[in-house]
């Protein structure tokens, strides 16, 4: 395998990494919860057409998403076992003798749901699918073409702000990033790093949900700053003292999310902001947390809730080009950008070409390569490996 350290732009432009029509299998591996070099298939990519300028159009089809959706709602864990047998294989190899099979099945179902949620979030972020925005007092933004948007931590990674801009193309949007959200990102960096150092633990599949907060949110904040007038929602030192990092319960770390204290700090920050600026209208909280949005509405804060369509509603898969009726324009995602985003979520991804001109070709993108320097992190570089699979592997 040939190994290169590349930026996204280099990955897009180098002739070694151009794609031709064919079918590919997409897999991930994660050293925090899977054995070394153990890959789990998460979907397939069908490259359909190639433009004159080397762009390609493709379909992404999550692996058996309809069946998995049934599992999450009905609790039929046996279907997960069929769809994700590799999970069981991995967990059985690593679990201690006291682990019950039922617990493993339960965890497998949870992991599958997290994977689908993250794929969904990624595709929203990249514009492949569009969230439907539920907006309080939508007429205000339509008519005044102005809004001050306070972004909840989840809105810094789930593409909600990109959807908002697509919806209100001509509006002047000011984005306010709460200091609490930036502190949460910092805490999660520490949390993910500590988990990573602890080595492979099968329960760490939950990190798939947290990692984008570490790997993607900082990039999204940079993008927001480049594209919108941006400011930080400060809090008084007295309030900041009540900020909560991840909690420890009986010596076991709890996942650092859904911390109601931090939500309260954001709400109080919004109220302070409105008072200071004398703004009764045009101030919105954007959050994909239903409970937080409901609470904010009860306290008289206008909210924007992005409702993302479920992947299983796309029966033919998700196409890389769509037409936005709101923005009256086409929206496209390149295959390179798509793979780049997935590597940030899963840590390591691999695609294998199973049919077409590039049959046998294998490409791996690795986020945590050992020689990564500070500038590489800032530039968002990845280790990209290219090679060919053996005939045995293909079979």
């Amino acid at each position, binding site marked *: 395998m040939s190994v290169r350290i590349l930026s996204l732009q280099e990955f897009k432009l180098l002739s070694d990494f151009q794609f031709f029509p064919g079918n590919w299998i997409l897999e991930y591996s994660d050293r925090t919860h899977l054995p070394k070099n153990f890959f789990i298939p998460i979907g397939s990519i069908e490259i359909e057409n190639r433009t004159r300028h080397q762009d390609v159009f493709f379909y992404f089809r999550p692996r058996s998403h309809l069946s998995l959706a049934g599992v999450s709602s009905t609790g039929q864990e046996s279907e997960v076992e069929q769809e994700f047998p590799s999970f069981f294989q991995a967990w059985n190899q690593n679990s201690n003798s006291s682990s019950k099979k039922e617990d493993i099945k339960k965890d497998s179902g949870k992991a599958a749901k997290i994977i689908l949620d993250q794929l969904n979030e990624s595709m929203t972020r990249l514009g492949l699918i569009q969230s439907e925005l539920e907006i309080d007092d939508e007429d205000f933004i339509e008519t005044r073409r102005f809004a001050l948007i306070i972004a909840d931590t989840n809105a810094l990674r789930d593409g909600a702000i990109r959807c908002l801009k697509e919806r209100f193309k001509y509006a002047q949007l000011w984005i306010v990033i709460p200091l609490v959200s930036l502190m949460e990102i910092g805490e999660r960096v520490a949390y993910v790093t500590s988990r990573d150092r602890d080595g492979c633990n099968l329960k760490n599949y939950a990190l798939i949900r947290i990692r984008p907060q570490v790997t993607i949110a900082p990039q999204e904040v940079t993008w927001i700053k480049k594209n919108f007038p941006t400011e930080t929602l400060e809090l008084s030192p007295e309030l900041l003292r009540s900020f909560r990092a991840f909690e420890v319960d009986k010596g076991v770390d709890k996942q650092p999310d859904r911390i109601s204290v931090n939500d309260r700090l954001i709400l109080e920050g919004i109220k302070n902001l409105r008072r200071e600026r004398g703004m009764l209208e045009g101030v919105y909280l954007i959050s994909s947390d239903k409970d937080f949005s409901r609470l904010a509405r009860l306290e008289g804060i206008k909210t924007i809730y992005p409702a993302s369509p479920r992947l299983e509603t796309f029966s033919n898969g998700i196409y890389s*080009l769509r037409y936005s009726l709101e923005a009256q324009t*086409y929206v496209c995602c390149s295959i390179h950008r798509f793979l780049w985003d997935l590597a940030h979520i899963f840590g390591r991804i691999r695609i294998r070409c199973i049919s077409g001109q590039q049959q046998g070709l294998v490409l791996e993108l690795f986020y945590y390569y050992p020689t990564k320097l500070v500038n590489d992190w800032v530039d968002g570089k990845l280790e990209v490996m290219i090679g060919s699979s053996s005939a045995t592997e293909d079979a």
Partner: protein
Amino acid sequence: MSQLNVVRGLKRLIIKVLRVLEAEPGEVEIINTVILEEIDVFRIKPINELVGTLLTFKQVSELVSSIRPYESLSDVNAEELELYYSQDVDLIKDGSLSHVKMDIPHHIGARVAIESILQQTNSLENIRIEIA
């Protein structure tokens, strides 16, 4: 039926979403008009044969699956490629806010636009779609 405004040679595809008014037989109300610049309606089969006709939601759903380029692409040559691709369509790429130019095959441009319209209008009643 609303008046057509099609000029052969002008690369443009217009999709009108209309509601049939039950109270006034023969009359329609325009709900939405989508104009796709650079996508040539006459280079897409079978849409090229349906220009100016009012189609039901079901007919359009069936139409989407049969859309293909006008030219046969079995032996692609340079001239056919020029006809296959629309030139410099404005689009948002990779989540960026600024538009970039990109070549989109005419039939793919038409297909994704019609799919978006179908998705948005699938809950409405008495809908007709006109392609111009």
